[in-house]
């Protein structure tokens, strides 16, 4: 059977599974809708958290980013896993003990202030919308690549599926679908990785294969470093970013991970405090399986690419090369006219994407109109690292179809988790808490469902018309979460003296300075472009790492302001005493 048929079958089966789970796990109360009735086992929550966490970007993009940035890619590996240690040790158990439904619930109650709650809601909405738009886009892209439909049609199909289980089941439906989605995505990621590792080194464990020797007896990493330095690239294991920048980006990603609302709320769904701790451990274990395999895939793919293409005549290139050239993810422009591929440092093209003309060149290559002045002749889209893996390894068609289903599972599970945060923020934090505190549970549930419909429509709209800031999701979502939620929650637990005034000024200052920095140096929305270049970065910190500075600013200002204003009232100090002791979490208390 062809790839296309297999893809229809496997994607169809997985979608039927997700919808079946949604019907089975319908929610009948707000508690089921918001926190799955607090009855999810730590293991199931760990699986769901891992699927929630790993997005289309982790599944399709990360190995590619590492393959093309070498050591510099470590910021994502450490940043997106180390945050779970902070989450497990500093946040999850205490928030579970607190036992409400949302992050703004905690901020609003702990800081006895509706202003604080509102700041938290606005930040949660902004972070989640930025993040979800990229996911919907990801669904569309996977559909268009594997099933030959328009990107927009793919977005509509994705919207319909997510809406179905988010609308019916809320957190309960999402949780159990995410468990299934984790199984699909990890299987789809690992099978090709294991085969590639065997091919490259004979070792079936990719994490070990990465440090093994190939058939020529040379260690793979040494060979890759050699290949790269010979051609004038920086060695793979060295990287080009400054130590300061690596430090700050890693920290911003870790602190942001620990502060992302869609991750935090997953820990409200387990029965007890000790379950919250344990499920954070499971979550990181399941995430680590993919995150330690990705750098191995990166090494295999980069080595394979360098060895296959370097000085190879185009006529003798393997099939996968020309196939991906046809889809526009690879482009070759024969600058010196020798009919051979030269892959050297620098971009082969002007701008971000190759612009193909209809014509073919002397040896049959697709011609592009935006070749650059460098000597490098090869353009490779990073996403190809994971997408092309099964073909390079010569795996059967059903495995290629599985990768499509895995990419969709990763994108859909993350989108669903984010949509839940958005709908909960609207129905619970805004409508119930601010405007209509006396509505019945049934009515709130109805509003929650309507909000999820609204959230899906807005996310789909952003997926089809991506706003410019979506591409900066890493800087924005993580930077803002790191500079607002993380300090406010940690101080709310670990400092009894922290008060309303301190927390609000801290969050606003953190958000303001981080937004300003990103708007100026990443998006170019404000400030003089002449003085907003890389050379003007403060202390050499890139916008992606600036969330760390925002976080430090938040902490400092909160601590100073709180010392000069009245301490929190006795009953709030009692709340803090109470969340520090694990016993008695029982049921999540409902208002």
């Amino acid at each position, binding site marked *: 059977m062809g790839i296309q048929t297999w893809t229809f079958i496997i994607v169809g089966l997985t979608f039927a599974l997700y919808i079946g789970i949604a019907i089975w796990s319908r929610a009948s109360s707000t508690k089921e809708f918001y926190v799955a009735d607090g009855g999810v086992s730590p293991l199931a929550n760990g699986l769901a958290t891992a699927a929630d966490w790993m997005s289309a970007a982790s599944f399709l993009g990360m190995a590619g980013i*590492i393959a093309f940035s070498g*050591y510099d*890619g*470590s910021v994502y*590996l*450490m940043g997106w*896993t*180390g945050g*779970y*240690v*902070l989450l*497990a*040790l*500093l946040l999850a*158990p205490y928030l579970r003990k607190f036992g409400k439904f949302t992050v703004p619930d905690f901020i609003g109650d702990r800081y006895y202030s509706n202003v604080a709650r509102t700041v938290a809601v606005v930040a949660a909405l902004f972070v989640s919308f930025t993040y979800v738009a990229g996911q919907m886009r990801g669904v569309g892209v996977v559909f268009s690549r594997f099933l030959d439909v328009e990107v927009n049609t793919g977005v509509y199909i994705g919207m319909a599926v997510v809406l179905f289980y988010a609308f019916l089941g809320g957190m309960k439906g999402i949780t159990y679908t995410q468990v299934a989605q984790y199984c699909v995505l990890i299987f789809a990621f690992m099978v090709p990785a294991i085969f590639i590792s065997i091919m490259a080194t004979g070792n079936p464990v990719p*994490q070990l294969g*990465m*440090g*093994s*020797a190939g058939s020529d007896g040379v*260690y*793979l*990493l*040494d060979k890759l470093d050699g290949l790269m330095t010979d051609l004038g690239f920086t060695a793979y*294991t060295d990287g080009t970013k400054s*130590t300061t920048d*690596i*430090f700050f980006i*890693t*920290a911003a990603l870790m602190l942001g991970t620990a502060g992302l609302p869609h991750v935090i709320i997953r820990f409200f769904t387990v029965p*007890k*405090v*000790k379950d919250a*701790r*344990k499920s*954070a*451990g499971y979550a*990181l*274990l399941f995430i*680590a399986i993919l*995150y*330690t395999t990705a*750098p191995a895939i990166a090494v295999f793919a980069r080595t394979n690419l360098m060895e296959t293409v370097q000085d190879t005549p185009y006529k003798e290139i393997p099939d996968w090369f020309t196939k991906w050239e046809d889809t526009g993810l690879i482009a070759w422009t024969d600058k010196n006219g020798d009919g051979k591929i030269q892959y050297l440092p620098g971009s082969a093209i002007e701008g971000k994407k190759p612009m193909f003309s209809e014509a073919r060149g002397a040896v049959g290559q697709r011609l592009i109109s935006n070749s650059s002045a460098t000597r490098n002749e090869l353009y490779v889209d990073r996403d190809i690292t994971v997408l092309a893996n099964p073909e390079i390894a010569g795996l059967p068609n059903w495995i290629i179809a599985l990768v499509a289903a895995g990419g969709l599972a990763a994108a859909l599970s993350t989108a669903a988790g984010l949509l839940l945060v958005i709908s909960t923020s609207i129905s619970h934090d805004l409508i119930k808490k601010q405007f209509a505190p006396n509505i019945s549970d049934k009515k709130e549930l109805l509003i929650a469902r309507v909000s999820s419909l609204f959230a899906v429509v807005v996310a789909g709209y952003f997926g089809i018309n991506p706003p410019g800031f979506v591409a900066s999701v890493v800087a924005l979502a993580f930077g803002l979460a790191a500079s607002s939620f993380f300090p406010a929650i940690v101080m709310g637990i670990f400092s009894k003296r922290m008060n309303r005034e301190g927390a609000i000024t801290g969050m606003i200052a953190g958000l303001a300075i981080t937004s300003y920095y990103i708007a100026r140096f990443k998006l170019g929305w404000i400030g003089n472009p002449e003085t907003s270049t890389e050379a003007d970065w403060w202390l050499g910190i890139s916008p992606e790492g600036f969330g760390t500075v925002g976080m430090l600013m938040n902490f400092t200002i909160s601590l100073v302001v709180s010392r000069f204003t009245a301490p929190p009232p006795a009953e709030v100090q009692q709340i803090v*005493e109470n969340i*520090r*002791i*694990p*016993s*008695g*979490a*029982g049921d999540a208390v409902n208002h």
Partner: protein
Amino acid sequence: MDSIQRKKYWRENLKYLALLLIIWFLVSYGFGILLVDELNTIRLGGFKLGFWFAQQGSIYVFVILIFVYVKLMNKLDKKYGVNE
């Protein structure tokens, strides 16, 4: 649980956190970033050690840290009778 017991429980908890977070910092920011060049002179099979910590080792240690924390806290909860 009286307030003295609560304080003691909390203090022991903080001690564990400090210890675990020092290790957390050391394996990632220490071995993977600040000391990476020094460690890269040491080899672990086909890996340079600093690079291994940055792309593999730190993640393994993170997972272990959380499970150690779970164990320590379960014991602490039992000791103070606040387990469920």
